[in-house]
């Protein structure tokens, strides 16, 4: 099944896990699955309507999902999703 990589800032919202297995055949289904299992994480991944935020970029392997079909992009069991929220510290 595809995996979802979380940055360290979000791992406390997923019981400390930084890599999660997800069920789904699209990016959106995989994200939904993770959001269902970790409700506190859910609002950090997408908005209330399930749409992506403009300040959280999600990568399917090394591609920004916005350019390959968004949440509808198909995922394979060996794929990796990475959640990359905007951070501004310096």
């Amino acid at each position, binding site marked *: 099944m595809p995996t979802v990589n979380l940055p360290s800032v979000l791992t406390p919202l997923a019981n400390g896990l930084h890599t999660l297995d997800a069920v789904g055949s699209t990016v959106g289904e995989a994200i939904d699955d993770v959001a269902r299992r970790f409700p506190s994480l859910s609002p950090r991944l997408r908005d209330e309507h399930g749409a992506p935020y403009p300040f959280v*970029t999600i990568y399917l392997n090394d591609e920004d999902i916005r350019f390959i079909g968004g949440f509808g992009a198909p995922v394979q069991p060996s794929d990796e999703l990475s959640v990359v929220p*905007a951070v501004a510290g310096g």
Partner: protein
Amino acid sequence: MASSMLPDRTTGDLAPGEYIRYSRHLILPEIGVDGQRALRRARVLLVGAGGLGSPAALYLAAAGVGTLGLVDFDTVDVSNLQRQVLHGTRDIGRHKLDSARDRIADINPGVHVEGFPVRLSADNAYEIAEGFDVVLDGTDNFATRYLVNDLCVLLGVPNVYGSIFRFDGQASVFAAANGPCYRCLYRQPPPAGLVPACAEGGVLGVLPGLVGTIQATEAIKLITRAGTPLIGRLLLVDALHWRQRVVRLRRDPECPACGTREIRDLSHSEEVCAVPGPTDVDAVFAAVPEIEPTTLSSRLASGELLDIVDVREPHEWAIARIAGARLIPLASLESRLSELSPEREIVVHCKMGGRSAQAVRRLRAAGFKRVWNLAGGIQRWSLEVDPKVPTY
């Protein structure tokens, strides 16, 4: 030093003694004498002399960059010293530009420093950045990041980007010819309050060292034309689990800065954080009712019964706590609602007020009517009510 011994920033010619100073560069074929001269001629503007700007300035000075511009309005605070290695204990209270100037002069007296002791703004950005070849973004807030991005796109100057939070870092090169920009990656910043600042969320002290030196590396590569810069690629670092990844960064044809070019000046660049995001997000992160620390103190002293809920993490609770408060970390709030009485008035606090504002919204959404956010968190409580509570 005799004038004939001074390096020449116009031609890039090295002074005789500098062949030894830069010998380890000169024997690298990717840099060599031509590359070192290019470094000598180069003018790099560092926006921010803090966590990222510190290692970047140190290494760019050591590398022989001819002119370093530094933009920072701040003074050195003791809490900076865990990561801002440009400054030392004896510099506490000094302007960062002054301590930076001294440190850089010690590392390499051949570097010319131009200091700008101001906050970068739409009003001064053009004037400050004029004539610089590369801008290095070491700022600590979204508004200035978008300003730096738009400035670099409009001027056609590469923006060597780095950003950090807790254990995570990002680096890239934006606004290079035909390359993407920051707005291609993040069209909008998060609503205020969603992402805590390093002052509240924390940052591993060595992390800006990692990312800032990556930025210095990229600046040197751009100047010397060595190797393959991080244009069109985003470097992601997780120092806690040591995961790193380089992902593709495409230029967005609909990007208002480098795509459609509808951003033609900087008049709105700093307002990005005030620009309304998606309506539902705004609703979630709208302002919450607050109580002043002195008001809370007076009410407690008069015998009023209020529940004080601390939504920080246990490791923060171990540092400092408000007497009578109970710890319910934000992530476990929903699962522990039964511990709270809807009949009682509740004051929620965290370190500075960001996380507790989220908690207030969640409690109100769960039906708790009389819930207040402690303004400024335990930080202000310590300053205004009880100085025995340590600040951190």
